[in-house]
């Protein structure tokens, strides 16, 4: 709506709701994508399903067709992840945990917790950076955002790890079981006051977010009432945490449970959950509560909309709602809320591969930092130096936090704004503050590098990526392949000419690059040393320039 239209409202009217209008549209749906499976399709799939495919990832998927590729992305059978470790012992000695060993089963120690928090956050970044060739790690972020818990609000770091362990265990599993597990997770019971929710003093914090943020959402079809929030709170009374166990555990205290009947609004068909007594009352009533909530189709639609915004595009028009979300939600329900069938249908759909839906996601800060590291194969320090390794992870975790994504500490229980806030959605990742910082990081590691200690300086070696291309001594081919790999959009001829100017200044003939490159990679050439310096510098400028393009922020 333009200004003129805005002011032309009759004074008695309120401005109409300005939904997200999509003026142009596509009408593809969930039918399987049948076009010839090509390299662009593969790149699109891996860019969306991973944090930034490396050249090796592309190679690993090369011989596979679409279905094989999607099955590979969904195969989590071989994944095993070690928990975060004591990387801090040299500065803050931990009496309970040996250096290099995990602290997640150690007693809470408030003199050490802050060091464990840093370890936890560095570790969270490392999961994405050490991504397997699956969508698993990308789903971890999805659920970490969905069932958001703030580490800053939970004093027991190991409890936070076990919250994240629930996310890891269920991120590709059953959403309903996941919701049940997260409801009684000690960190969640702490974070949203479930531990304080008793029959004499009901605390409705979790009961509200369970419906508003975790299952039903706030769409027009979600019509639960304030009374439903209160009734759900009473169902959930009696759960508590036991801080005397290691790690902190959840318990149910029947004496604190409200054993009267709970009646819900007509949105839930005036359902009554019979009040129960005894030690299983909490679990039994919780199960009934979730059965009731998951009866509502809106649950499946809400989650599918969130997946759509995460993997496809943030604007959902009528076609996307009817042809993609609705059938996807049906698959979700028909499979008893198993997550994998939904992902498989989405990743194999013509809608997902529609050219219309490509390159239109703005990289979140984690995807930005991890894809940079993976694309340029930045070498981490040696694994047998936990302190240094976690400094390296922590460097990026800190940078990602500076760019609005503090892993482990989402801004609120609603997660990051980019995944829920109208109308900007993922555009809010890009601000006058964050965009310069993204560029600054790239340039810093291309040119200067970060010196951690005498043994390790982290710096981009431009030769690694360059030697992954087919004919790097051919200027046109190098530029073409580098852009194809690093950018999801085709550049205009002027932009390409600007890049070529870096390799061949002043428009000198192409063979100059070939000669100089060949000399740079062949130590027997008499001008090898000067050519090596010159080509290295030109490659640095080339990649810098490519990454400084706005296109680099897209996926």
């Amino acid at each position: 709506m333009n200004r003129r239209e805005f002011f032309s409202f009759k004074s008695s009217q309120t401005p109409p709701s300005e939904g997200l209008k999509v003026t142009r549209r596509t009408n593809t749906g969930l039918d399987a994508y049948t076009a010839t499976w090509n390299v662009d399709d593969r790149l699109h799939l891996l860019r969306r399903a991973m944090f930034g495919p490396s050249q090796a990832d592309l190679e690993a998927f090369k011989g596979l067709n679409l279905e094989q590729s999607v099955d590979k992305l969904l195969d989590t059978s071989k994944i095993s992840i070690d928990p975060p470790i004591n990387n801090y012992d040299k500065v803050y000695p931990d009496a309970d945990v040996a250096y290099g060993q995990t602290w997640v089963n150690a007693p809470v120690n408030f003199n050490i917790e802050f060091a464990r928090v840093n370890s936890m956050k560095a570790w969270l970044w490392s999961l994405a950076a050490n991504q397997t060739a699956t969508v698993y790690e990308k789903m971890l972020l999805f659920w970490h955002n969905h069932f958001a818990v703030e580490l800053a609000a939970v004093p027991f770091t190991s409890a936070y790890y076990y919250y994240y362990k629930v996310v890891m265990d269920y991120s590709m599993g059953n959403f309903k079981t996941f919701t049940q597990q997260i409801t009684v997770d000690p960190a969640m019971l702490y974070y949203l006051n479930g531990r304080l929710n008793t029959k004499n003093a009901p605390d409705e914090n979790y009961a509200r977010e369970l419906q508003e943020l975790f299952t039903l959402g706030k769409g027009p079809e979600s019509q639960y009432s304030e009374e439903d929030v209160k009734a759900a709170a009473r169902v959930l009374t009696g759960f508590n945490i036991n801080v005397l166990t290691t790690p902190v555990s959840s318990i149910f205290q029947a004496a604190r449970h409200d054993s009267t009947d709970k009646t819900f609004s007509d949105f839930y068909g005036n359902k009554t959950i019979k009040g129960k007594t005894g030690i299983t009352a909490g679990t039994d009533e919780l199960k009934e509560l979730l059965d009731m909530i998951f009866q509502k189709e809106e649950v499946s639609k809400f989650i599918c909309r969130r997946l759509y915004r995460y993997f496809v595009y943030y604007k959902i028009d009528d076609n996307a709602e009817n042809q993609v979300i609705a059938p996807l939600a049906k698959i979700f329900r028909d499979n008893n809320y198993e997550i994998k069938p939904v992902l498989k249908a989405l990743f194999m759909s013509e809608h997902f591969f529609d050219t219309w839906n490509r390159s239109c996601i703005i990289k979140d800060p984690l995807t930005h930092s991890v894809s940079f590291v993976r694309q340029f194969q930045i070498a981490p320090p040696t694994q047998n130096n936990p302190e240094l390794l976690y400094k390296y992870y922590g460097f990026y975790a800190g940078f990602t936090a500076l760019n609005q994504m503090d892993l482990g500490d989402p801004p609120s229980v609603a997660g990051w704004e980019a995944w829920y806030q109208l109308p900007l959605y993922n555009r809010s990742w890009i601000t006058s503050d964050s965009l310069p910082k993204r560029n600054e990081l790239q340039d810093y590691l291309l040119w200067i590098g970060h010196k951690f200690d005498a043994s390790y300086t982290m710096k981009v070696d431009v030769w690694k990526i360059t030697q992954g291309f087919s004919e790097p001594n051919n200027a046109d081919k190098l530029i073409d392949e580098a852009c194809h790999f690093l950018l999801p959009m085709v550049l205009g001829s002027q932009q390409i000419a600007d890049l070529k100017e870096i390799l061949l200044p002043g428009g000198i003939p192409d063979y100059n690059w070939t000669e100089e490159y060949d000399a740079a990679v062949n130590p027997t050439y008499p001008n090898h040393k000067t050519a090596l310096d010159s080509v290295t510098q030109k490659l640095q400028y080339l990649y810098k320039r490519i990454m400084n393009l706005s296109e680099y922020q897209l996926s």
Partner: protein
Amino acid sequence: MKRRTFIKAAAAGVSLPISLNGMQLRSVQNNAFLSALGKRSAKGRVLVIIQLNGGNDGLNMVVPIDQYSNLSKARSNVLLSESAVLKLKNSNKTGLHPKMGGAQRLFDKDKMSIVQSVGYPQPDFSHFRSMDIWMTASNSDQVLTTGWMGRYLDTQYQNFPQEYPNANMKDPLALQIGPLVSLAFMGPKVNMGMAVTNPSSFYDLLDNAVGSVPATPAGDELAYIRLLAQQTNEYADVIKAAASKGTNKSTKYPTGTRGGNLAEQLKIVARLIHGGLQTPVYMVSLGGFDTHSAQVETSDTKEGWHGDLLSQLSIAMEAFQDDLELLGISDRVVSMTFSEFGRRIQSNGSTGTDHGAAAPLMVFGDAVQPGIIGNNPSIPSTTTVNDNVPMQFDFRQVYGSILQDWFELSANVVKGILGQDFNTLPIFKNNLSHIETFADYMTQISLGSIYPNPARDKTEVEYRTDGGGILQLSLYDPLGRLLQVFFSKSHSQGEYRYELDLRGLKPGNYILQLRSSLKSETQVLQVI
């Protein structure tokens, strides 16, 4: 006195005492400050919005001292000791949290207006919805994607961003101190705000490509990023220049890291304004107000989480105002606090409070008409977990007052921005348009006794208006939801009785509200 006679009297230079909640105010004509300010235009004026994230417990910030006996029944485990509450000048009914000495001094130096019980009809208890409602100035059931400040800026700076910066406006239209830009700044086309964490340091962005983009979603996103890159480069220089030219003079800013974050943000704002930046709107924020549990320390209820936050707020407010005064720019700046909602009247078992409805907000600066607007909320003698502070003023009345009286927009333009007409409040003392609002404000209304109360089926209420005008009588449930409007009609001066039909109401507490254009009175009605 009728409005017309009042204006005449004021014009003749007669000094009239005006009673504003028992405070004696001088008439507009006598105020030297106003005549000085009257010569200024709205140009150069700055609004600083202080966002308190999470839902601020208004009853624990601006304390209704005359409600203590009922408060102590409803929230004894979080309630401040009555003797600890800070007294405000000329008011023995209303006080501030003991940690808000700075705010108390601002009030006592006539730099602050407190607006009681600000909210909106049909309150939403979700943080995220309620925040959107405040940011976009929408109705409770309406989703808008533009912000109230974005729409305001769009009326002043048309064709942003294409034609900006230009000779008339070289500077950013709105600045948020922090990494994210608020929805409040979202304009019809683009967000009109800019995020800054360190005004002295911007990294140059190379991509100045302005070529065409494909007509696809990817093209839309690309155009957005390019636009942002371009704006950042264009504005980086002016911000850096202002940051280096500007300075801070107050010694009241806290030192060290503890609790200094909001103060740090305001310090940047003061420095940029002093450095000559013409940006008319700034936003800063303080988070952590979602005090479901451990809001206070049980051993001493002024201590604890909420007290810490209010202390940070109060210190930052006082230091900022002090700085502006020392820098000689305090006449150009007003600041407003807000939060997405207040909290329940009744506390919970975790020494905390749950999501509520209306709450007080503070506006401070030289140009503010000092005092308290509105009455203390009336606390029922018996409360349930559902009971909320009902709203006396719509938050859009505050916005409207800022737009009309601080930014000097015409009532029509303000209506365009807010979507409907809202009566302004006497928050500012800056120009003659206030004579009307003062006159209206003088017109007292009162909601007298309800008999019988408790009642079944029907009851009768007495009310009175001194000056006449349109009066509205409405019934709210304890959650603040409007149930019924009994009447909304013109009255002449006098006393009235009205019989209320209570059939169909479930037993429980209800709030009966009588409103004129600027005043509201409430009584608790109990149905049995």
